[in-house]
Structures are given as C-alpha cells and as structure tokens.
C-alpha cells in the first residue's frame, strides 16, 4: 500500500505541476492580450519602471563593480601564466557581456524586484484590493499586471547593460589602475574583440528573455498566492527559487544556441 501511496503522491505532484505551468502560460497570454491599455497610458509603465528598475540600481551597480573587480584579479592571475595579460580587457568584457552581465543582473533582479512584485500583488490580493478593482469593472491583469510586466521586460536589459559597464570599469580599476596592465591594450583589444552582433546583441537577447521569464514568474506567483501571510511568504520564496533555476537553465539553452561552434 505504501508503494501505491508513493506512486499516487508522485502522480499528483506531476499533474499539479503540469496544471500550474498551463495556468501560468494562460496568465502570460492574458497579460499580453490586455497590454494595450498600459501601452497607450505609458505613464503606468513608467511608474513601475521606477520601482522595478530605478530601485534596483544600487544593488546592480555595487554587485557589478565587485564582480568586475574579481574578474580582473582572477583573469590577470590566469592570463599571466600564458604571458597574455594584455588580453585582460577582452576577457573581462566578454565574460560580462556574454554571460555574467545578463545572468547576474537577472538573479539580482529576481531577488530584489521579483520578490517585491510577488509580495506586493500577494498582499493586494490578501487585502481585497484586487477584488475591489474587479468590482469597479477594472481588469486587474490590464491595470496591475501588464504595466509591471512591461516595466520588468524593459528594465532588465538596461540593468544588465549597466551591470556589464560597471563590471568592465571594476576590471579596469583592478587590472590597469592597481596591477598596472597597459591601459591602451586593455581598451583597444577589448574594442577589437567584442563583436556587436555576436556578443552584445546576444547578451541583450538573453537579458530580455530573463526579464520576461522572471517578471512573469513573479507576477503569476503573486496573483496565485493564497491570500494569507503564509501564502504570500511561500509565493515570494517560490519566485526567487523558480526564477533563479529558470535563469540558469535558460542561460545554458541560449548559450548553446547562440555560441555553439562560434
């Protein structure tokens, strides 16, 4: 009997997961469908851009600076073994633009802005604000979800670009200012090796995909949260965990598609 119960429990879990993915996909579709209103009244998106994008600036800048400085140190130590210290700029820039910029910025975005979105919408549900909006004949997906979704999609590539720029500056501080790598070769080799379409555009595509996925997960978890303190706290945790795993898995898939054999 124990075996049957275990198999039954696993089956229920799988069915629940598939069902939730279906509901989330429907939620994403409805968000796109009801986006017209917020795109016409763009000030609604700008308001959300402030809380998702601008409020994430500090953490992105500080983290970017330190990641760039660590890359500068580690890169110098490795490149020195092969007498290629002058390629430090290339290594820092490619590492950040292709991988660390989009991925780290998305992970930080999920923990800072994603969790805040889930908690805010979950609490709006718990305090009947969403029901009140429905009773006022205002579609909550159009008025609450869609502006936040577009704010997330727009702010994520900008934050990733900022993360990479500050990271490169961090690498410059450590490599050139502190260690003494030649400044000319640091910048010129970087300029020659980093390709706009191959590296920067692919990095931007990655960050748009991550921004979409993280924002949809955060909004769905908030909208679907049981209207209790425990429910909102569980939803916030799920947002960070699910988003982080999704970012790392998608990063592998996108990297395999974009850079295979390049």
């Amino acid at each position, binding site marked *: 009997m124990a075996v049957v119960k275990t198999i039954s429990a696993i089956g229920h879990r799988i069915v629940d997961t598939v069902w939730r993915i279906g509901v989330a996909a429907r939620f994403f579709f409805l968000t796109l469908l009801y986006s017209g209103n917020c795109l016409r009244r763009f000030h609604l998106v700008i308001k959300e851009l402030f809380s998702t994008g601008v409020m994430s600036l500090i953490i992105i800048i500080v983290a970017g600076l330190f990641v760039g400085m660590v890359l500068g140190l580690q890169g110098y130590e490795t490149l020195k073994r092969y007498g290629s210290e002058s390629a430090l700029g290339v290594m820092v820039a490619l590492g950040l633009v292709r991988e660390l910029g989009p991925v780290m910025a998305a992970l930080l975005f999920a923990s800072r802005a994603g969790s805040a979105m889930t908690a*805010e919408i979950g*609490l*709006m549900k718990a*305090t*009947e*604000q969403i*029901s*009140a*909006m*429905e*009773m*006022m*004949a*205002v*579609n909550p997906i159009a*008025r609450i979800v869609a502006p936040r979704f577009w704010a997330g999609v727009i702010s994520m590539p900008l934050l990733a670009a900022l993360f990479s720029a500050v990271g490169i500056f961090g690498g410059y501080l450590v490599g050139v200012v502190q260690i003494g790598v030649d400044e000319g070769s640091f910048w010129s080799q970087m300029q020659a090796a980093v390709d706009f379409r191959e590296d920067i555009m692919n990095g931007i595509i990655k960050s748009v995909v991550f921004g979409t996925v993280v924002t949809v997960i955060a909004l769905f978890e908030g909208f679907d949260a049981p209207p209790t303190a425990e429910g909102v706290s569980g939803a916030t945790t799920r947002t960070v965990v699910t988003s982080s795993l999704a970012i790392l898995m998608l990063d592998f898939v996108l990297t395999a598609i974009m850079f295979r054999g390049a």
Partner: protein
Amino acid sequence: MPAPALVEIRDLNFTYDKRPVLQGINMTFPKGKLVAIMGLSGCGKTTLLRHIGGALKPTRGYVKFDGQVMHELDAKGLYLMRRKMGMLFQFGALFTDMSVYDNVAFQMREHTDLSEEMIHNLVVMKLNAVGLRGAQHMMPSELSGGMARRVALARTMALDPMLVMYDEPFAGLDPISMTVIGDLIRSLNDALGATSIIVTHDIQESLKIVDYVYFMANGVIVAEGTPDELRACDTDFVRQFVHGEMDGPVPFHYPGVDYRQALNLRA
C-alpha cells in the same frame, strides 16, 4: 405603490465542494431602500454579495440586477453592469500605492474622459461629503481604520452607483466611527437616490439606519422584516441574535465527541 425592485434574488442555491452554502434564497431590494442582511459569520452573507456582484455563478436560481440576470452575462456585460455598482469592502481595500486623492479619482480616470480639473473638483466634493477633504494627500497607511473606511466610502460613491453593497462596514470601528459610518451610509443613500445592501452582524448600529432586514442562518433566510418588526419578534434565533445571548438555536459548543469521552472518563 411599493418601489420597483433593483435587485431580485429568486430560489438562489449555491453549493461549494458538495456543501450547500445558500439554499432557496428569495430576496427583493427595492430602489432607494437600505436593506441589511444579517447573520452569523459563515452563514453565507458574503457569498450572497458575491452573487449579486456576479463574481459567483449559482448552482440554481438567479440574481437579477437592473433587469439583467447576472450569471448569464459575458465578461464585457458583467463589467458594464458593475459600473452601476459600488462595493465597500470589510477593511476598505484602499489601493495602498495610491494617495487618498488618487484612490477616489481611480474610477473616474479608468471609466470616464473627464479632464483632470473636473476630476479634481469631483474628488474634493466626494471627500468633503465624508469629512476628509483635508486628508486628500495622505497615504492609506497614514489613516485610522475609521478614516480608511470613509475614504473607501467616497471611492465607492465616485461614479454615483445605482447599487451600493457594504460588506461588514462596522467591523473593527470605535463607537464614534461606527455612528459616523452609519449616518454617512444612510445620508449618502438618500442624497444619491441609490439602493444599498449592508451585510453585517452589528445589529444595534444597523437597525438604526436600515429599512428592512433579512436574517440568515446556515444558508437560508430564517426571519425578515422591518427593524421594528424584528425587535418585537419572539422567534428563538432572532431573540438570541438581537440580544446577543450565549446559547440558543446557535449552540455555544462546536459539534464534537461527547465531553466525557474526550476526557477519557467512564460513563
């Protein structure tokens, strides 16, 4: 000649998870009247309000509002009907990321093409009606419970709805705020020529202001009448409810195993 009905409920039944929540409910809410639905927590009052708002579909029967059967409407039709309604939620449900002013202006901005100047004048008038003109720049977190309820009342009245529903409007208020909210509900209903439905279990406060009362217990109507008729009513349930008696048709003890058995005592 009695006033025509704005809301009619006929043979309304609703079952949730095989448990009957509402059974054979028949109610009439005439235009311009203030009607209370009273009963214990969990007796189906809020479920009934959600049926009137079209948020739930009945298992049998119907709710008719302004001549339309609510559960037969599609999403667009439902939203059109909801523009004629207002609902005051139990704790106000103010939008916490907006100021008092923006909360009251919300529906005007969403549903009308009025200029900001016109909206400003209307918001100030609505806030003045609830005595909170001076609080328009405050955020919901800065308001007391009574003030939040008054702002929510101003927001509910923003587009002069035909029907206003109040879900426990007196819950958690001090006696002064309770009287203020009660008086505002009555005076705004009369001034706007609206129809109001109050779901409450605060019997003393609501009997002062309403025109008619339905008593509910376990999903059915157990008594109805004007406030004077109910004060004089001698059925066990109404007497227990009106006088707040501890034991009666509504038992003090939740059903469970025999007390002796629970204490492991021999009979």
